[in-house]
């Protein structure tokens, strides 16, 4: 279980995150939405343990995330960053295999290569395997990085896992956006992975997430089920964008459409 308790983050006098509290269970997929500069990335960095909160706690199974053994954490928690440049001419396959480092810490084993191949297939990227990562398009790089984080936490384990995705869909075409989020949802469904993903497109998030957290100016506006959050009122309050409510014909997930802005 991931617990965020009264967590705050400050840079100088500017408050990036203000008194945030919520919990996420393994098996759950939580999407984080909010306007630019709301603190979404800071929240993910906080959860990953990369930065420490000024106040409050981030706990993973009752223990402060910073107190966990670095290697244990590396095998159970993976973070997809927004942009990830790779130095030197590593191939896509080699980049994915870097995700296996915490499991072997030395020589790559056959099982690591097998897992890396399966992870790449998961993002429909087998044809990218031997290409030089730095020559791939932004969307292809994002898919390779997705495969890399999946490979990092691939094996079943006694301990639950945490998958953190910072805008996994930002650079992707619509088909791949759905592909990545459906993979994230499947992984959560396996039962032992908690997924936290920053998604800009609220309608996309509504189709895959179990719960949606709305963040604005460093404050958690709401975190609730899709039906409770995706309402014209909540969206307008969070994004200052007048909306109407629609219903997706498949499964009846709520959608919002912005009102036309003609001045």
């Amino acid at each position: 279980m991931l617990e965020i308790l009264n967590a705050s983050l400050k840079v100088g006098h500017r408050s990036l995150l203000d008194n945030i509290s919520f919990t996420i269970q393994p098996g759950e997929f939580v999407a984080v939405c909010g306007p630019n500069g709301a603190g979404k990335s800071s929240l993910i960095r906080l959860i990953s343990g990369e930065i420490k909160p000024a106040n409050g706690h981030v706990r993973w199974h009752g223990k402060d995330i910073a107190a966990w053994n670095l290697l244990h954490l590396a095998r159970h928690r993976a973070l997809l960053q927004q942009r990830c440049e790779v130095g030197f001419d590593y191939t896509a396959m080699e980049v994915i295999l870097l995700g296996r480092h915490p499991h072997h810490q030395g020589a790559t084993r056959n099982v690591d290569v097998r897992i890396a191949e399966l992870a790449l297939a998961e993002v429909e990227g087998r044809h990218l395997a031997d290409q030089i990562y730095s020559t791939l398009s932004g969307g292809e790089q994002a898919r390779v990085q997705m495969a890399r984080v999946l490979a990092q936490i691939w094996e079943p384990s006694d301990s639950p896992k945490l998958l953190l995705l910072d805008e996994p869909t930002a650079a992707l075409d619509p088909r791949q956006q759905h592909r990545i989020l459906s993979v994230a949802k499947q992984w959560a469904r396996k039962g032992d992975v908690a997924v936290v993903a920053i998604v800009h497109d609220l309608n996309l998030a509504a189709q895959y997430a179990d719960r949606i957290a709305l963040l604005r100016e460093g404050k958690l506006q709401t975190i609730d089920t899709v039906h409770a959050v995706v309402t014209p009122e909540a969206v307008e309050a969070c994004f200052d964008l007048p909306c109407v409510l629609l219903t997706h014909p498949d499964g009846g997930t709520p959608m919002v459409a912005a009102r036309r802005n003609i001045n």
Partner: protein
Amino acid sequence: MTAISTVSIPLKPQLGISARNSILLTLFVALIFTLIISAGIGAVQIPASRVLELLTIPPFSDKWQSIPQEYMQQAMVLWNIRLPRLLLGVLTGASLAVSGAAMQALLRNPLAEPSLVGVSGGAAVFAAAGIVLGGTWMPALHNLIGEFALPSFAFIGSLGVTVLIFAISTRQGRTSVALMLLAGIAISSLCIALIGLLTFLATDIQIRTLNFWSLGSLGAATWPMVSMVVCLAGISVVVLLKQAGALNTLALGEVQAQLLGVSVKKLNRLCIATIALSVGAVVSVTGIIGFIGLVAPHLVRLTFGPDQRLVMPASALVGAILVLLSDLIARTISAPTEIPVGIITALLGVPFFLVLLFRMRRKIGI
């Protein structure tokens, strides 16, 4: 949503452990071959077959007395002059190449190299200062720790410069290639100026030694010196090679490396210290032999890809071969006069560096 594409595209097999080992074995054989050839060439020529034969008879062994008189000179030259020189060449090449490869991984750019960013220069200045200004206490220190006296001075210089370069060119886990190169130019110029200053304070004998440092030479090799370098540089190289896997993860950036279970701060400190130690130890006896740390890792990366677990050991072997060949040229091209080996490596390295610079123009920000 359609199912996962079931079309199976055969993947290029990954460079497995066996492939890696055969590459390293091939390079190792090439190194042995270079050693045997170099051992035979010089003012006293020794055929390769006799080199192998004489290698089985170390001095002071019982069989030493049984060497026929006509071969005695060859045996003396081989054991007392050629072998220490060649071993020093191997250690120098391996240390500089592995240090270069490690620096490139740590600073995430392919232009980092001990001589280029002034690490070798810093070591040379401190070693030179130890000789010229050491006065009475330097011999005392030498009595105390022997061959380790000079490298301990050089280590201060190389460590200081390495820390300085990292502090100037990296910020929040990102490195500026331009800043690193500019800082390197400044530090290298300072080192040249300081060594120049020291030559004015030096005695005639000291000047001869100082000239070594500015251009680099393996000519002063002795057995005690070689054993010192084996201790310091050899151990550093082994420690650095063990970090290859962790250095790979740094290609994803410091944040991801940390999330992949690598303690980045510890890795940085350990590598900086060992790079400084191996470069310091080597420079204190050979002076500045430039560009090996640039050329060797790049040749390996161009041929076999960027995986540090292969790049680092293979660079060690390639670096050793490069230094041996450069030294062979340096001591034969204008025989009987010897030219400093640093001149040869610079002639080799500078065009290489310029080509790299040209290819990297966009990344550096021009």
